[in-house]
């Protein structure tokens, strides 16, 4: 089956939105969780206290809002494109998350991690050159 250029353009736009919103959401969640800290032990009271802090953190809610935007774009693109195409194609978000964590959180990203992320992007490039749909239209 031959896909139209329009199908490729709308696939590209929605994957771009996914690649922007998912890393931003994860960076905001990370900022929130670093402020909250991890549970000392896994006693119910300890877990409940952490849960309350999570639910009252502005960064967590902002992160959730970004991830919801990602999720809507993701649901839309999955109505026509293969899961096995969309999932790897959205992997550019790994590079974006490293850049955002460096600039927004001041995380030290070692050269080996950048190399690993670059290799992930090569994998994405390979997958991106396969057709978006391999199954018949429903």
């Amino acid at each position, binding site marked *: 089956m031959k896909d139209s250029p329009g199908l490729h353009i709308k696939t590209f736009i929605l994957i771009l939105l996914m690649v922007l919103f998912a890393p931003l959401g*994860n960076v905001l969640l990370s900022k929130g969780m670093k402020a909250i*800290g991890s549970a000392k032990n896994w006693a119910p009271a300890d877990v409940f206290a952490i849960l309350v802090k999570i639910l009252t953190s502005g960064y967590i809610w902002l992160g959730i809002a970004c991830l919801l935007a990602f999720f809507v774009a993701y649901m839309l693109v*999955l109505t026509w494109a293969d899961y096995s195409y969309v999932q790897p194609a959205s992997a550019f978000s790994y590079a974006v998350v490293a850049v955002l964590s460096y600039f927004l959180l001041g995380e030290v990203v070692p050269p080996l991690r950048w190399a690993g992320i670059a290799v992930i992007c090569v994998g994405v490039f390979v997958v991106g050159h396969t057709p978006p749909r391999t199954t018949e239209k429903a």
Partner: protein
Amino acid sequence: MREFFFLFMVIVAGTGGELCVTRAMKVIGEVHDFRPAALIRFVFRAMRVGWMWVGIGMMTVAFFSLLAMLSIENVSLVVPVTALSYAAGAAGALFFLHERISRQRWLGVLIVCVGVTLVWLSKR
């Protein structure tokens, strides 16, 4: 040890959830109308598909596991490492969604996994 547990939950529950959501989306069919009212109708239609709720449940478990991981490790390590779900996702797409995975796609997934290994090795 707890890092491996949370990572396992992020990958297995996250991938399982995505596969269920994909199945729900395939039931609904391709979206052509992107106007707000149509998108809202689309979301309500999605919420009436059972697979959607199974997927949301699994993705909720994955989300809280991700939060636990983010409280322990840096986001620049955690998020790339969760790309291990690609291998699980490709296998799930093949067996659960009956998609045809070409050799080129498998090669891409393999390269992604090599990248994830390098990212994990950068952990000090």
